[in-house]
């Protein structure tokens, strides 16, 4: 019997394999247009709208939860207003998605036929997830009042009766959902730790645990009333959205790092291997954070335009607050984004050194200079917005003196970041520089150690700006020792997390065999040094926690930020050059050590900050609406710049495949099989940015009409 089954399976496999084999590529055109540019434009539009639709619910739900827990109706109203931006955008995303799929299937039939055959199972699931997301989105948006605390009020007897039934149903099922939520959460924790899980990449496992299983468990666990049911629907909306994104990214990743097939395109592995290719999850992580920042900034632009056009102080105050929250969300996404980008880049290198070299030092090296201009601008303008926001905070004048130093650090870092490694020089210019191909000083700024150091400094500076903003109107503080047990526990846990983050890597570097790091034995000293540096940083964590618990929180924060800056920027920034010269494979570990220290700093200092100013006397209430119009243009600038940057990054990621549809498997034999110039990129991306933002403005206007009508009959509205 088993032999028959094996035989049957073998026959299926043989036929399935032949179905995936590559055929000669066929290309078509539509009305004589450049097929690649047409698909490029449509894909970019789909991605822009998709990023917005996926990004906004991420923070809308969090804001709703904050409102639910704090019983502050303003947050609920804000979350609803963010969600209201989605309804038209969702339909447009789907329309562009359909258009892109039609274009791909008609213009690139061989390529799409192959991809559809290989991903057939995934595509069906993809379609099912769309149903799930559509249902959840509309239920989440249109069910806002129905599933609110006051949903039953004033709707009439019949509705009252229905809501009572719902309430009763919720009460009866509460025990079931709590138990189920708890079990799922536990499974999520086990999954996260890799206990009893099927074989899969660590990043994929963590991604799925953190974004699917744990939120699902938590969402079920919190169900206790109508509002929590609504929040659960919001969580489901995000899970479906993230699933859709992961599947799309899996296909993009497969095109760069195919797995589960041989060089002829035959399926030699399983669909899961095809799905879980090397770059699938790194791309998904990067896009997830990008969507968060993007969604925040587009929503921020909406708030800015509304602010500029506001006629009343009340409206100004509301949209100022909305813009602030949106920018806060964007910064939360922006801060870890460079690290996700670094991880993605590292995986690209490990997939193919040629792709990696082409990325940072080949066709796309100058594109990365443009990217540095854009990302640097994002951080600089975000900081400017925060500093402007301090003018509406009574008492923040005390901190103005620090701004010039932060500005100096960011501008210098920005300049170093966008310094190219090599400039196109003439023979005379080389001769003038003494025959060297590098500038005597600037050559150092163009190298990775310098760039890694300044990127970390920009992030640390932005974090510092945010700390100053937070404490702007805080006066006399309540000592942590008098706040009970909770701060002691939380700060100690944060300290332990910081030690765990840095300590495990210190342990690795102190005990690793040089061979593991591709180094000869005599180079061990280079990574042992970094290991000891991290160990010292662990001691700094302990000192920070002790000082905080002894009511020296400000000093403790200063100590840890200073040691992080010295270690990450000062020491490793310089040591990176030595490593590059003597033990270059270790450079990636230097970057990881910098990242881990920075993350630990953000976690520990934030935990301290929460309790340091908890219950502090307020010098004066924030004057929402007392914001310069200039600051609103800063928000608008941010939204335009991030849109450009997304397009640019997409160009790089896709362009790395050079003249391959599927790297190493299916060659692009069309007339468009070449890397476009940076000017072509700016033309295409500029066009997409222009059309997208005009489209968004139109959708916001449409949404405004609907909301105006809605506000006449219901409680919500701007």
């Amino acid at each position: 019997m088993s032999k028959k089954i094996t035989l049957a399976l073998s026959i299926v496999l043989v036929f399935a394999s032949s179905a995936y084999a590559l055929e000669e590529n066929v290309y078509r055109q539509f009305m004589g247009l450049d097929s690649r540019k047409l698909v490029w434009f449509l894909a970019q539009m789909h991605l822009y709208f998709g990023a917005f639709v996926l990004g906004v619910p991420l923070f809308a739900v969090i804001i709703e939860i904050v409102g639910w827990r704090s019983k502050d109706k303003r947050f609920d109203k804000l979350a609803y207003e963010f969600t209201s931006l989605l309804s038209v955008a969702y339909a447009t995303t789907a329309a562009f998605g359909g258009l892109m799929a039609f274009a791909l299937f008609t213009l690139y039939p061989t390529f799409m036929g192959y991809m559809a055959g290989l991903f057939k199972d995934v595509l069906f699931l993809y379609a099912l997830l769309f149903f799930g997301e559509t249902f959840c989105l509309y239920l989440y948006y249109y069910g806002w009042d129905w599933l609110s605390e006051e949903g039953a009020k004033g709707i009439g007897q019949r509705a009252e009766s229905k809501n009572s039934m719902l309430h009763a149903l919720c009460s009866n099922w509460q025990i079931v959902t709590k138990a189920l939520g708890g079990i799922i959460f536990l499974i999520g924790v086990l999954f996260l730790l890799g206990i009893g899980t099927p074989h899969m990449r660590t990043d994929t496992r963590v991604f799925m645990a953190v974004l699917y299983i744990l939120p699902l468990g938590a969402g079920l666990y919190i169900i206790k009333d109508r509002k929590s049911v609504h929040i659960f629907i919001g969580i489901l909306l995000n899970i479906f959205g993230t699933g859709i994104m992961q599947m799309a990214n899996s296909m993009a990743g497969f095109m760069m790092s195919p797995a589960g097939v041989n060089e002829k395109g035959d399926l030699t592995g399983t669909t899961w291997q095809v799905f879980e290719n090397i770059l699938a999850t790194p791309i998904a992580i990067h896009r997830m954070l990008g969507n968060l920042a993007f969604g925040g900034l587009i929503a921020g632009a909406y708030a800015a335009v509304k602010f500029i056009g506001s006629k009343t102080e009340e409206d100004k105050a509301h949209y100022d607050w909305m813009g602030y929250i949106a920018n806060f969300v964007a910064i939360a996404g922006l801060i870890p984004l460079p690290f996700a980008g670094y991880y993605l880049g590292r995986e690209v290198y490990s997939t193919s050194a040629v792709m990696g070299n082409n990325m940072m030092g080949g066709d796309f090296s100058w594109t990365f200079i443009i990217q540095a201009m854009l990302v640097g601008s994002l951080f600089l303008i975000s900081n400017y917005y925060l500093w402007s926001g301090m003018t509406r905070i009574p008492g923040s004048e005390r901190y103005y003196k620090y701004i010039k130093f932060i500005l100096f650090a960011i501008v210098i870092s920005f300049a170093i970041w966008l310094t190219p490694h090599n400039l196109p020089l003439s023979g005379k210019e080389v001769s003038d520089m003494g025959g060297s191909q590098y500038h005597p000083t600037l050559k150092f700024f163009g190298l990775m150690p310098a760039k890694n150091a300044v990127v970390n400094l920009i992030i640390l500076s932005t974090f510092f700006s945010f700390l100053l903003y937070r404490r702007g109107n805080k006066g006399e503080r309540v000592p942590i020792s008098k706040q009970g047990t909770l701060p002691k526990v939380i700060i100690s846990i944060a300290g332990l997390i910081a030690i765990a983050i840095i300590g495990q890597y210190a342990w690795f570097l102190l005990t690793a065999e040089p061979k593991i790091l591709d180094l000869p034995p005599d180079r061990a000293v280079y990574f042992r040094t970094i290991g000891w540096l991290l160990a010292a940083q662990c001691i700094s964590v302990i000192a920070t926690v002790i000082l905080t618990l002894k009511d020296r929180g400000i000093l403790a924060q200063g100590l840890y930020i200073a040691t992080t800056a010295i270690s990450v920027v000062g020491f490793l920034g310089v040591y990176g050059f030595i490593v590059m010269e003597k033990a270059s494979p270790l450079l990636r570990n230097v970057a990881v050590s910098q990242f881990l220290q920075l993350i630990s700093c953000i976690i520990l200092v934030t935990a301290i900050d929460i309790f340091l100013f908890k219950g502090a006397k307020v010098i004066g209430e924030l004057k929402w609406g007392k914001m310069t119009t200039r600051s609103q243009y800063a928000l608008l600038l941010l939204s335009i710049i991030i849109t450009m940057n997304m397009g640019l990054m997409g160009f790089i990621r896709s362009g790395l495949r050079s003249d391959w549809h599927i790297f190493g498997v299916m060659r692009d034999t069309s007339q468009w099989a070449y890397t476009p110039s940076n000017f072509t990129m700016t033309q295409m991306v500029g066009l997409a940015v222009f059309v997208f933002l005009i489209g968004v403005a139109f959708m916001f206007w449409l949404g405004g009409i609907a909301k105006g009508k809605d506000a006449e009959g219901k409680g919500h509205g701007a």
Partner: protein
Amino acid sequence: MGSAVGKAFILLIVLVTLFLWVGSAITKMTGGEKKGGGVVEITPEGGESIFWGKGRCYTCHSIGDRGSAVRCPNLSLWGDKFPLPIGQRAAERAKEREKATGLPYTANDYLIESLANPSAYLVEGFKNEMAVVYAPPISLTLNEIKAVIVYLQSQGGEVNVDAVNNPGEISKKFFDRIAAASAAGGGDPAHGEEIFVGGGCADCHTLDGTGSPFGPDLSKIGLKGAKHIQESILQPAASFTPGYETYTVIKKDGKEMFNESGKKYSGLKIKEDNENIEIAIGAGQILKAPKSDIKELVLEKNKSLMPDELVEVLTVKDFQDVVAFMLLQKKP
């Protein structure tokens, strides 16, 4: 509200215009689209189109003040560091190479070696960062590589197409390497060797007398061609090297034999006499079972001792690299 939208619109126009200007300025400074040509001839012109196009040599090399790359040596006159263009420099380097190896290197051999095995003799002050040009994504054909060599000859040296088409022993070895890589769908034999040694293949197989004799000796596997090698990796049970068939031992009670961990005893029959059977179940692991306990020895026609999960752990590129390395194993 209308004026706010208008101002936002103007801001958008200004920024997009600035973005276009930056793209245009950078393109003027660094060059435009890099298009690969079609079929090329083995001429300096053909090589030039490959060098500045499909071959992506310009990513790391410049030629004089053409190009801006500095990662790898400039291939023409450039400052004090490179007083000779590559056409002449190759002859000088070949002399040094001859001195170091004792082999009769020509300028042509040096150029071919530099493309086929760039780490063999690095220019002082530079690391080996050169891509394997005959593997994806570049995947140059042998003729395209020959065209590039002719183009490099033309940089201050004597163009000799015949020498490229009819190479001596040294260069022929490199051409074999490139041909093997092409046959494997484009693969890097050097990386394939790393995978072979570090990835566990050498734990069971022998190459040129080194490795473990548990599995078949692969010193001549290249003679069997790419298809056979690919099939042997992907479907190891499709065909067996005689003497390497898999057997399962069945005891007289009808059960298959198990070891302490409950694992089945399946392996290679390495010895059989009147009293005992010896089955190798892994490298250095031999089971000696008395015939009196054994009911039968089952030949497993659909089962190989080679791990099935290789296809799960090998990426397409790794697979091609290993096949390319295997294709070079043609010991007479």
